[in-house]
């Protein structure tokens, strides 16, 4: 047993870190550290920098541009990107639609879509949740009716992250008879967001940010060759997607960076004239979250070690999402506590007051925003159901 990076892992980490220091544009890094929102251009710009380097889709097969890195190298890369404060890589194309096409796509679908995903030419979003279908995804109602060489899609998706940036959406739609068992009769369609009949309506979140939308489909015509896998096999595709690339859900690198920033914040803030970090009540909260993060980083490495040894971790890997998001949320909560009453001012009206601190102003909205992490991508309760049923046999 050896918890330290092996020499070749250290060498790899150093190489990634040095490259990031040189190639991550300062204004993108600053935006991340300032908890500012990324524009579509920001996200695409960073995507293309990585694509040019050949590092945008490490997990893909070599023939489609993968790097051939092992799971530990992929993890180190993600951890370093998170730690450096790089913009997130939007998963819908790279980590979701891409792997689905590689697994189930026809040769034509692969050569049409994969290079464009790789190069950042198409921005993708995910059409899963519906107003009546959240955790119970298989109850979805958006309907696709066959009409010659097309499907005609009618219905509504919701919580569609970054749909307002997207060129394409992959959707789960109902193609079977209404009385079929829920998981049957679902198909997986790729839909051009410019198709007539699509309307995107933004949903404003409690932090004031815009990231999710409602997407309405009103008789949208979709060519049959944009269906992935067989008609009625959409649930198989969805399950594949669910099990794919769940290794980075813990977001260790990002949380490590946020923990360091929290310590700096708590060293600057004062209580009774002394640094807050010396206050026992606050400091112990900080230590406990550091303990949990340290433990999760090792737990994550243990799963990776299994994966590298050829044993795919089972559904218990959901614990990385549960505990990882709990830590992310706790860090945002403690940052707001550290700022104290100053955290209540979230934005300037008109001309900013003297010394108005944008960083502090971002803490409370970020706390609000991060409540989403235990809800999205399969709520933490659903993750517990998955472990209970599939790993523990309950």
């Amino acid at each position: 047993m050896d918890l330290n990076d092996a020499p070749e892992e250290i060498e790899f980490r150093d190489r990634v870190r040095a490259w990031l220091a040189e190639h991550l544009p300062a204004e993108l890094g600053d935006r991340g550290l300032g908890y500012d929102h990324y524009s579509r251009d920001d996200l695409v710009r960073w995507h293309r920098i990585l694509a040019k380097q050949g590092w945008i889709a490490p997990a893909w097969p070599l023939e489609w541009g993968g790097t051939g890195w092992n799971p530990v190298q992929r993890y180190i890369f993600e951890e370093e990107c998170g730690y450096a404060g790089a913009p997130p890589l939007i998963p819908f194309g790279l980590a979701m639609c891409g792997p689905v096409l590689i697994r189930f796509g026809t040769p034509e679908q692969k050569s049409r879509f994969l290079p464009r995903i790789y190069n950042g030419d198409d921005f993708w979003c995910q059409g899963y949740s519906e107003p009546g279908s959240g955790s119970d995804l298989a109850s979805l109602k958006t309907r696709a009716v066959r009409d010659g060489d097309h499907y005609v899609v009618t219905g509504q998706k919701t919580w569609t992250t970054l749909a307002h940036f997207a060129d394409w959406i992959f959707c789960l739609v109902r193609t079977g008879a209404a009385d079929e068992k829920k998981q049957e009769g679902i198909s997986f369609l790729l839909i051009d967001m410019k198709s007539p009949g699509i309307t995107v309506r933004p949903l404003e979140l409690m932090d004031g940010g815009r990231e999710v939308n409602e997407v309405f489909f009103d008789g949208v015509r979709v060519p049959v060759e944009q269906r992935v896998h067989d008609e009625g096999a959409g649930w198989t595709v969805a399950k594949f997607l669910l099990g794919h690339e769940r290794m980075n859900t813990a977001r260790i690198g990002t949380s490590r960076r946020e923990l360091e920033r929290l310590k700096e914040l708590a060293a600057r803030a004062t209580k009774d004239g002394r640094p807050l970090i010396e206050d026992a009540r606050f400091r112990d909260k900080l230590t406990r979250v550091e303990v949990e993060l340290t433990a999760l980083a090792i737990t994550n490495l243990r799963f990776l070690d299994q994966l590298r040894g050829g044993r795919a971790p089972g559904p218990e890997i959901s614990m990385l999402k549960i505990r990882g998001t709990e830590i992310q949320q706790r860090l945002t909560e403690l940052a707001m506590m550290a700022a104290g009453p100053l955290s209540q001012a979230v934005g300037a009206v008109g001309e900013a007051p003297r010394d108005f601190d944008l960083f502090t102003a971002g803490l409370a909205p970020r706390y609000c925003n991060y409540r989403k992490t235990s809800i999205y991508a399969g709520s933490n309760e659903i993750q517990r159901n998955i472990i209970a049923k599939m790993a523990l046999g309950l």
Partner: protein
Amino acid sequence: MNFEYTEEQRLLAESVRRFMARDYGFEARRRIVASPGGASDAVWSELASMGLLGLGIRAEYGGFGGGALDMMSVMEAIGEALVVEPYLSTVIGAQLIQRGGTPAQRERLLPGIAEGATRMAFAHTEADSRYDVARVSTRVRRDGDGLVVDGEKRVVIDGPHASTFAVTARDDEGRFVVLLVDAKAAGLRRAPMRMLDGHRGCDLILDQVRLPADALLGGPGDALVLAEEVVDFATALVCAEAVGAIRYASDATLEYLKTRKQFGVPIGAFQALQHRMVDMVIECEQARSMASLACARVDAGLPAAQRRRAVSMAKIKIADACRHVSQDAVQLHGGMGMTAELKVSHTFRRLTAIAQQFGDADFHLERCARD
């Protein structure tokens, strides 16, 4: 990075588990705990003959020269089986002697420990010391060419089994020292007691106990460094022991959820219980990660502050996980979890003890803050 045990570590772990399954089942343990001595000589001989008592002792003194990582799987098996023999106490004694002793002291004591002839206990707790090893009122003074020690130690774990004690004290100049004290020394008295977890303990009364000059371990001035290093080593090991006990509590609870029926279904069908079960499993994995970290760090020869911090962070997680898993194991077993007839209640008691052994979460939070 690599989490595999070596072939040697794996084989050892298997043989220990086989032994525990065969000779240290729940009933066998009950008989041992209820026996007058509260520990089994036969088990002790077997631990010696499997090489476990010499695991951390260097080859020149009859051992195998292993570190905490080599002992991890042994400690896990001990935790699972709830072994009450003075294994960890004797390991502490051996490490104090190996790290702080003169060649003559090592020659004299270590081979006997590896063979199973010597059992040790670490007498450090006093009435007002809580978990602070450095807070000591027991006094030792020079007297002719020997030493005289005076003081009272409280709840010395495994004390009744010990043939040799490692005793902490302060010398004439107030310096922290560690003394080797033969259990048969005149003026030494033990007041034995049963401990919560089935171990035996004792108060140790040292009334003008005369010791030879070579009873001192380590030079004056570095004995505290020695004691802290060894206590950190032992803390890492007790973390590994906790993992074995936590895993047992979690496995037993899962099994119970699948077999116990109410309202016509196994109670594991209820989501309220499923989610609590999942949280126990997560705690178990997180605890295992931190026990690995602690064992790796105490073996690495790090600067004291780094070692202390890693061990304290591990013990915070372990202490919290001990409480969480033991309490929920009993809760999910319902009334059955309360009975002495089920092993889970005994595991509860050991986990409750481990949560405090070598410092509870508050103690280690404080220690983290100091460094």
